[in-house]
């Protein structure tokens, strides 16, 4: 459902949308509508009428308790389905890192993102690393490992089109991965309040074709921006 408004541009974005959709259909489209319908029907059906007294139902009998007991078991069954799916996706996105092609370091600070790209040799911490501020250059189809750091307070690295979000914590290096699957230019947000400039740290992620990406690396190396 989310992809109708926010494009799904990472390999796992569709999975996260799937979790959302499944929960939507089970919980909203089925349960919520059903319960509200029963609820409203009861209000209309048992509205006060002259000469019709209320019934005396304790709800302590087993047959009466089953009214809530069976729906309750159904809720439990739905919970299991949702749990299974949610944990599976969580495992794929956060716990399990597939083989990656390149590493990018992301450093958050008040109030900017800096990115260290691997550069021409494809490896970090070499002289040809390319540092940028607020612009993250990625090549479509490559799997990236990110190392997320913070210099001062908590920030949260969020790329809505990737369905990716991870807090940056001072004193820790958080790793994770993403794989862009289509080209384009999109927003990077900071999703954890980080002081008065919280709204002023937008970044851009530029997903490029291999040719464009190579050209960008070449232009940076030529201008000597790689330190």
């Amino acid at each position, binding site marked *: *459902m*989310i992809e109708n*408004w*926010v494009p799904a541009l990472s390999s796992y974005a569709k999975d*996260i949308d799937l*979790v*959302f959709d499944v*929960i*939507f259909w089970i919980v909203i489209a089925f*349960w*919520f509508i059903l*319960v509200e319908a*029963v*609820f409203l029907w*009861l*209000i209309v059906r*048992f*509205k*006060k009428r002259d000469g*019709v*007294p*209320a019934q005396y*139902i304790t*709800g*302590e009998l087993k047959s*009466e*308790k089953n*009214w*809530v007991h069976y*729906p*309750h078991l159904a*809720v439990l069954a739905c*919970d299991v389905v949702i*749990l299974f799916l*949610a*944990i599976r996706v*969580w*495992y794929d996105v*956060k*716990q399990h890192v597939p083989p990656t092609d390149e590493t990018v370091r992301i450093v958050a600070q008040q109030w900017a993102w800096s990115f260290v790209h691997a550069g021409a040799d494809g490896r970090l911490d070499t002289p040809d690393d390319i540092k940028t501020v607020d612009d993250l250059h990625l090549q479509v189809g490559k799997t990236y490992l990110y190392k997320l750091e913070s210099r*001062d*307070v*908590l920030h949260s690295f969020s790329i809505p089109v990737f*369905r990716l*979000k991870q*807090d940056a*914590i*001072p*004193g*820790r290096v958080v790793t994770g991965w993403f794989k862009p699957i289509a080209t384009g230019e*999109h*927003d990077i*947000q900071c*999703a*954890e*309040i980080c*002081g*008065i400039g919280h*709204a*002023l740290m937008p970044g851009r992620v530029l997903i490029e074709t291999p040719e464009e990406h190579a050209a960008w690396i070449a232009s940076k190396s030529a201008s000597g921006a790689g330190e």
Partner: protein
Amino acid sequence: MVVKHADHAHEHGDHHAEQGWVSKYLFSTDHKIICFQYMFTGMALAIVAGFFSYVFRMQMAFPGVPVPGWGLVTPADYNMLVTNHGAIMIFWVAMPVLIAAFGNYLIPLMIGADDMVFPKINRLSYQIFLLSVVVLFISFFVDGGGFAGAWTMYPPLMAKAEYSLTGTGSSVFLLAIALEFVAFLLGGINFVTTAMNARAPGMKLYDIPIVVWMIVIASILFMASVGPLIAGAVMMLFDQQLGTAFFDPNRGGDPILWQHLFWFFGHPEVYVVLLPAIGITAEIITVFSRKKLFAYKTVLNTAIGTGILSFTVWAHHQFIAGIDPRMANIFTITTLIISIPIAEMMFVYIATLYGGSITLNTPMLWALGFIGTFLIGGVTGIFLGASGADIYLHDTYFVLAHFHYTFFPIAIIGTYAGLTYWFPKMFGKEMNDTLGKIHFWGTFIAFNCIFIPLFFTGMLGDHRRIFDYTNFPELTTPMLENLRAFATISLVVMLGFQLVFFYNFVTSLLWGKKADVNPWRANTLEWTTASPPPHGNWAELPTVYRGPYEYSVPGRKDDFWPQDAKS
């Protein structure tokens, strides 16, 4: 209006010695007066926090345009407003009104006692609470301005003045929170011991009205969960003012520790305010559907179960905050498990309506409105509790809409339900039902119009606590801007409808019809004494013969059967 009330107390014969106005209303140990103190303080702060929400919503809808009544909203203003809106609404509105005010009023009256067991501690509790309000207001005006780091107070932003730029404000704010906790610890101990020990003769455990149970369970949850945060608040204060490094990662501390200390309290806190509102709803739907509460023991067990489970789910607020992802799986499971008792409770309430004879007056509308909207809050919680979906939804407006769909029914709808239901007992006057219904429908529809759009802005990527989205090209589409503006206009409409309530409240208080002892024909003990009850509550304390929900018992002439009636 207070004078009017005093006249009434005298009419109904105050057995105790005459008291001056000051000792009667400012330094009273009477639980009913302390209830009013808590309630009016809470309402006054609700106006403050409501005004804050008006200011920052106007900024969201019309960024950069000066807001009438405030002026231009700077980023610092904006952060301060959202922070204090949240903190005030939870700590200084929901808790004092739902737990302290209703707890104070209802516990002694519903269990047939003449007062709280420790009236002086009760008074002290309110005085400390009032002090915390004063300290909170001081925090707005100190050098650097009020604290602006979100109500969760995450370090290092909270801990270091160089990051937050509100060094003094942060510490004063923390002090206010700490004082508030002390007030509620004292109050909570009073509630629990009163309900446990001071019950009327004959009142067995299962004869206690559900709302009393709920307030007691809520107090216990509060007492059991707030400890680590009190310790954390001391550590935080030392970090701010004395140079320690409990939460400073550069010197051996850990900022995540605070998040655990905070949410270990913060999650049970949700249930601390939820349970009293659920209890109020139980009282009202049974009375106005003339039905016995469906499966009393099940309601009680689910409440206790929810309470215990609520201690096992706290880290679902931190899924992407850097906790170990393996732990997130455990917390996902516990979080979805907690949906089971809550769902059961909702089913029980809906089942109670079956076979009833439902009168749709103002209190009943509020109570039914509570069930209808709280369901939305409940079901949207599943999206956030499921760790896979939370990766995207965390810290977006989806979260915000979700918890407003829980807190608004709890704190606002629940309070209005309770207030309109017990108004005749509290003040001895009847409220205008037509104005009450206008107020209900206006508030109810406008509320939904505020937060349904915010679910969508959240799904579309609006993240929280951003004072101006113009820096994010994808968040400046006409659709998003229209949704935000619509929500803001709905908020203004909703705030406007509260004037109807204030008008109704004041006119009913002054010129309302005099209320009977038992206008709703209810069973519970508070309806057996005068309206309003005198000091000491009853001339002779009642004895209890049956449970609180014996409505429409077959073979009886009346469709209600008061708890203290011998036959």
